[in-house]
């Protein structure tokens, strides 16, 4: 099996690479590339993302033809994709970080700043929070509700169709932290930094 971590030259993806390679051992081939042909021939892709929504989308779109390739992979071929942090946020129609920016539009909804109740809650939301699993998701196999995952973000994905939500967390309000829509998976938290349970989620994705 070939799994590609899409490297679109934005932010720091070393930890994502290390964690996937750790879980994959030598059984799964992990590629790190923006090469469209390699993406096309992969069985699964991972879309990481750090920094702002706008920067990530802009960096992604700098790669000629990548949105068509990703759309073909995810929407037409329906092969599995895992978005992490801003990678998940980019599934949305629109993001409002810095300025209004169009997303990939795979899961209808938008990405807005977390309401920190006039400074009552710190932003970014950094640290370990307990996820509440609200629907069975394949990537949560053997993961219990209330498990701790590592977060660092100031914006939240608000999907229109609440059925896609697979887990939430409590912070200044209830925040969506994981989605599953058919072959499309995303986590707002960082499985690559969430210790053994995070690695278990990566393993679940690789085993899909």
């Amino acid at each position, binding site marked *: 099996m070939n799994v590609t971590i899409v490297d679109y030259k934005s*932010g*720091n993806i*070393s*930890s994502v690479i*290390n*964690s996937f*390679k*750790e879980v994959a051992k030598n059984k799964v081939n992990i590629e790190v590339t923006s090469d469209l042909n390699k993406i096309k021939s992969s069985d699964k892709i991972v879309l990481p993302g*750090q*920094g*702002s929504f706008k*920067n990530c989308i802009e960096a992604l779109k700098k790669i000629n033809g990548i949105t068509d390739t990703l759309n073909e992979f995810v929407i037409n071929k329906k092969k599995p994709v895992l978005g992490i942090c801003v990678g998940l946020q980019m599934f949305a129609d629109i993001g409002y970080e810095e300025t209004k920016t169009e997303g990939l539009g795979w899961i209808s909804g938008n990405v807005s700043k977390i309401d*920190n109740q006039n*400074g009552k809650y*710190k*932003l*970014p*939301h*950094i*640290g*370990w*929070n*307990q996820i509440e699993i609200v629907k069975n998701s394949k990537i949560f196999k053997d993961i219990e509700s209330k498990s*701790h995952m*590592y*977060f*660092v*973000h*100031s914006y939240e994905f608000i999907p229109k169709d609440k059925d896609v939500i697979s887990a939430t967390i*409590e*912070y200044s309000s209830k925040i969506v932290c994981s989605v599953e829509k058919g072959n499309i998976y995303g986590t707002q938290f960082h499985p*690559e*930094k*969430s*210790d*053994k349970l*995070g*690695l278990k989620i990566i393993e679940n994705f690789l085993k899909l």
Partner: protein
Amino acid sequence: MLKNRIIPCLDVKNGRVVKGINFVDLKDAGDPVEQAKIYSDGGADEICFLDITASNENRDTIYDIVEKTSKKCFVPLTVGGGVRSVEDINRLLKCGADKVSINTAAVENPKVVIDSSKKFGSQCVVVAIDAKKKGDKWEVFTHGGRNNSGIDALEYAKQMEENGAGELLVTSMDRDGTQVGYDINLMSKISSEVNIPVIASGGVGNLDHLVDGIKLGNASAVLAASIFHYGKHSIKEAKEYLDSKGIPVRI
């Protein structure tokens, strides 16, 4: 619910841990990679390396350590000490650091914080503030505490938030190494001044000090070095103690 974090800090000099864990079963007591792994297996919420290497020739050792650690520890890794430029930050991140803490360079050249947070995102930019009390204020020191910038720590904290820091690592120089507890006033004043999380550092001597840093100092995370070294307390003990005092921690 978001949990308060406990962050053990390892001082690294010329590639070796200076003050480390004194466990008998350690193959190499001076190996930062092995010690970081013990902490992460023990439940540390993050690992922090502070590179105190003085000479430039040995600076490269930290990159190798970060690279090896990031392949073994799957919790966030923060690296600081001697970070001067956006290029330094880039290199540490490429080696597998998740966050980089910037101290002297943030005072001398605010553009480092502005540019790196734009380029890599605020989530990986930690500004370390070394503060010393003077009258009813605190002043920011640089160069490992040797130079007084004369800058007011509270104003500086606010400025660093505006420049794009994602977190502040606040060390009381008056308390550092004393084991009498954090400077609670400093922590709570800075925490109420900014909206970003504050990591308290400097002065921890017992587990009650960690409780105070969170309850009284309003810190989101507590960093400590010596109480975790030499096996005085384990991360697990610290967490169980905090939990018993009603502080939310990841257990």
